[in-house]
């Protein structure tokens, strides 16, 4: 016996790699859900560590709302070219065209809620039995109770009352036909852990994470990027601001924060001293106290 020697980032990394390899070992057709955000970028980096020099035993899957930050798509395509892995894209536009969902109207219209249907369609079409996602338990209180292997029924639903016990590091990936498992390898990471890891590993990120000048409007007390996807009217005043984004989602629901953090060190300082949690900048979580719990039950990541 001796004193513990693994640094926390090494421990979190080893756990995530272990979980990714369990997915590879236990499932026939897994996939890695890639949003272009820092958490899924971290997952890709961890997958390199888990499987190189071999290929990934799964494709990356991007659910594309069509309302993306251009920088995210540029990043995604460059990354795919660099790592040489397969990318499958599920388009929300296709789901709209097929009449499976109806585009929201009004000032606060967003495609964010529609992507759940596109995701479920993409899972069904490709017969994925496991989807790896970058959710973390520190993000939100419904996520704090979710398992690392989280079983979903045919409708993608999460039933918090019927979660399987998850003991030691033994993950039970047994499912019935039609069910699938959402797997969260970085469940135990905090936002700051992800940033510290990105810095340590020198992982490149989309530029919108760093401070830049951008035209913004203020909506419901939050700073939104002015874009053709946002339904704007005369009340919306465009101002040029120095901003960055703490999460990367659909342009219609991802709020910016005013920031002069141009380098990763600045970002880490900013987050360490920040007084607002990461999902505080997500309008989709503001809907109600149980917003995330309800969306998870409905099949959201």
């Amino acid at each position: 016996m001796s004193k513990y020697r693994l640094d926390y980032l090494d421990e979190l990394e080893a756990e995530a790699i272990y979980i990714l390899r369990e997915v590879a070992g236990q499932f026939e057709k897994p996939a890695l859900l890639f949003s272009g955000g820092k958490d899924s970028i971290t997952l890709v980096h961890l997958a390199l560590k888990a499987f190189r020099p071999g290929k990934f035993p799964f494709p990356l899957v991007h659910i594309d709302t069509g309302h993306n930050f251009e920088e995210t798509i540029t990043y995604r395509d460059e990354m795919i070219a660099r790592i040489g892995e397969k990318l499958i894209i599920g388009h929300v536009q296709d789901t709209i065209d097929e009449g499976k969902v109806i585009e929201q109207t009004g000032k606060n219209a967003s495609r964010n809620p529609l992507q759940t249907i596109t995701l479920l369609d993409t899972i069904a079409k490709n017969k994925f039995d496991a989807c790896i996602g970058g959710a973390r338990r520190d993000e939100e209180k419904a996520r704090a109770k979710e398992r690392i292997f989280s079983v979903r029924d045919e409708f993608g639903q999460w039933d918090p009352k019927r979660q399987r016990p998850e003991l030691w590091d033994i993950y039970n990936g047994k499912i019935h036909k039609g069910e699938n498992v959402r797997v969260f390898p970085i469940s135990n990471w905090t936002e700051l852990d992800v940033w510290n890891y990105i810095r340590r590993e020198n992982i490149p990120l989309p530029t919108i994470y760093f401070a830049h000048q951008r035209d913004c409007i203020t909506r419901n007390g939050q700073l939104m990027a002015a874009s053709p996807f946002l339904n704007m009217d005369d009340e919306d005043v465009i101002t040029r601001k120095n901003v960055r984004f703490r999460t990367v989602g659909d342009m219609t629901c991802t709020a910016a924060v005013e920031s002069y953090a141009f380098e990763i060190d600045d970002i880490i300082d900013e987050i360490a001293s920040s007084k607002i949690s990461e999902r505080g900048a997500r309008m989709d979580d503001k809907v109600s106290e149980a917003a995330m719990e309800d969306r998870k039950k409905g099949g959201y990541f």
Partner: protein
Amino acid sequence: MDILKFITAGSVDDGKSTLIGRLLYDSEAILADQLEALHASNRKNDDGSIDLAILTDGLKAEREQGITIDVAYKYFETDKRKFIIADAPGHIQYTRNMVTGASNAALAIILIDARKGVVEQTTRHSFLVSLLQIPQVVVAINKMDMVDYSEDVYKQIVADYKKLAAKVNLDNVTYIPVSALKGDNIVYPSSKMTWYLGDSLLQHLENVEITIDDSSAHARLPVQWVVRPQTDALHDYRGYAGRVSSGSFKVNDKVTVLPSGFSSTISKIEVYDKQPAEALAGMSVTVHLQDNIDISRGDIIVNSAGQPQLSNVIEADLCWMDTRPLDTSLTYLVQHNTKTIRCKIQEIIYKVNINTLEKDFDEEFKLNDIGRIVIKTAEPLAFDPYQVNKANGGAIIIDSRTNVTVGALMLRQSVE
């Protein structure tokens, strides 16, 4: 900086949620928007202060019932250490949830209400902490403000608990008198209990030593995945990927692969683009062997000089976690490390009444029951007794009809 995972055992009545809330609040782990929600809530204490217990509220169903149903994980850190709290419910009907939370904890905080002292649930929680082999225990004697911060009350509870600790084989116990409601000895030392000279709870959590079993005799690497690029450049590349569950491996170590029993020597250890000389417990690595032997997922690589037991009839402690009782005529699945095979529970030796610690010979093994059984597996398992090496002694039972995890096994010894 390292990570300490700990579990809190107690019920709402003991002030468990308030204790966790106080830890988070006083260590300033709560962010402004969460604080705003906290202040906005209409749940207040009698004296009008914020009800810190709200911080641990999770699911809607739990808020409605005012209890914790499931294990919730909370994260915070200080300058010295990072912490993961597994907040598990304390009522007897949620024993399985506590077992789940306890399975990964390096430390357990057992809460005792100073007004009530050592009670039935204290026995139950202590038994579970011992069963799951949590290495460090803190007995937090809470609500000291309700007993006038009396040293005598504290001393009496410590004396009572020591008897219980001896009965359930718990050592490494630290006692701390606290008031989660008032904040005494949680983060800051109490000015009301100057007779207590030890650390506050947080100071203790920051300083308690966590050890790692790095003896080569316990070197265990369950194989998760075989890396075989099969490209022209890497035609002969064959790496065995897994996480070292206990002990440590070095290049040139003689190793044995189980259950086959083939031996070889470690020729290389890889972690992506690095080649460390040693693979320590907890590390995810890829190892290469000198000889080309058939190894696949489910096999375990061990140090040849310190081999585990290999058996298909094993005595074990079992915690049953399903609403359907255990059926000894049914074939279940057992998952041990990366291996999943068929099994039967061949014999129920006894059950334990976890409130009184008395043995019970009632036939039925129902939800939350704990006891000793004999399991027969379709192939031999390469295991260590859980009491000696937790990492290679735990297993789960899966009901193949529902695919649900229905039992937790702590393997004890081969029965031949």
